[in-house]
């Protein structure tokens, strides 16, 4: 088990405020019911589930969230957004996390190239959307 050290200084970082502003969401509205994670179609592949991302942000642990692949696996299907009983638009929080990293030129973006025969087949909207998410 990892030990997490909490301090009030972490709760008022500029980054945290930026995430709230960009997403337009109140991160502290989340009460950890886990409904977002239960419905997340890509949760099986992510190192953090949506409710865990929310919890880390509530503790000001932006660094840990930025190190996670979870926001990059989010395809904005908005199941979490639809089901959150507190009305938190989790998909927007994920996009805010991606946007800040993209704007700062950091983050852990990896462009995976699918096999050539698949590239020829996939609908263009998939390529357009994937690159939209991975760039500014």
């Amino acid at each position: 088990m990892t030990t997490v050290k909490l301090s009030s200084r972490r709760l008022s970082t500029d980054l945290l405020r930026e995430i709230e502003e960009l997403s337009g969401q109140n991160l502290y509205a989340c009460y950890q019911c886990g409904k977002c994670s239960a419905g997340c179609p890509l949760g099986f592949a992510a190192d953090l589930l949506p409710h865990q991302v929310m919890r880390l942000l509530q503790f000001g642990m932006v660094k840990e969230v930025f190190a996670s692949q979870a926001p990059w696996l989010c395809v904005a299907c908005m199941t979490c957004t639809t089901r959150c009983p507190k009305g938190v638009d989790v998909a927007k929080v994920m996009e805010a996390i991606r946007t800040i990293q993209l704007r700062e030129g950091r983050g852990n973006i990896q462009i995976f190239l699918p096999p050539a025969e698949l590239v020829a087949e996939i609908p263009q909207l998939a390529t357009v959307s994937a690159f939209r998410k991975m760039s500014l």
Partner: protein
Amino acid sequence: MQVAYYPGCTLASKAKAFDQTARWVAQKLDVELIELPQWQCCGGLVPQVTDTVMGLLAPIRILADAQAISDRLMTLCSFCYNTLKRANFAFQRDSERRQKVTDFLEQQYDGNLKVVHMLELIRDEIGFDTVRSKVTKPLTGVRVAPYYGCLLLRPPKEIGLDDPEDPTVMEQLLEALGCEVVDFPRKVECCGSFMIAHRPELAAQCSTTILRSASSFGAQLLVTSCPLCQFNLDWQQMRMLESNGEISPVPVIYFTQLMALAMGAEPHLLGFEQHLVDPRPTVMELGL
């Protein structure tokens, strides 16, 4: 009835079958589709953060062009529908971004255009009774599962097409065509979306869950409104059929193809040859 029409890039290329059957069906239903004289890609996704303007330019330009023709714009692709409708929503409510977009585009748009999906148009304006009256080959006894995916329904506050968890618009349409509707629990689940472009194995896993579910509920056909759902489910199904036979084929077709089939369109108009899992054997077997 006249309505402006935005096909979007995928319907002009990889999903031609969707476009051509929709045009055929619209004509049958006395709807005149006026394609925008010039159009470009909508951007695929709408920016979700509060300060981004760039991603709104393409969709708002499309809406401004459409407003010159009509008071509403019809789309078919779930991605285009979602992008145009959400961009419109942001434009209507965020005065700062609205000003920036307007200044940049140098095009007048007042935010009042209505973005409608063809399913919405059929339900709210044409009516299922009219659809029923145009059916010449009722699909009696054909077990069809509607698959909605994400972007046709979510986020409900901005899209509002139907109940986000238990939608019924496609069910009603299928009933009008005479089909036996197969309700299955994964009908609003994500197919893996554009993950197919950079992590195809993950999209495959999402699609597998949906296909297994539809198949286990006895669906003979899956019906969708999204070219990406269609592709992901089609592609993964082809691989599943080639590798293990754990499911029987459930061809994935567009709702307009099924409508055209039931309304007696010539087989060459249906575009079934464009699919990876060919719907024709199933359709033949069902005696259609």
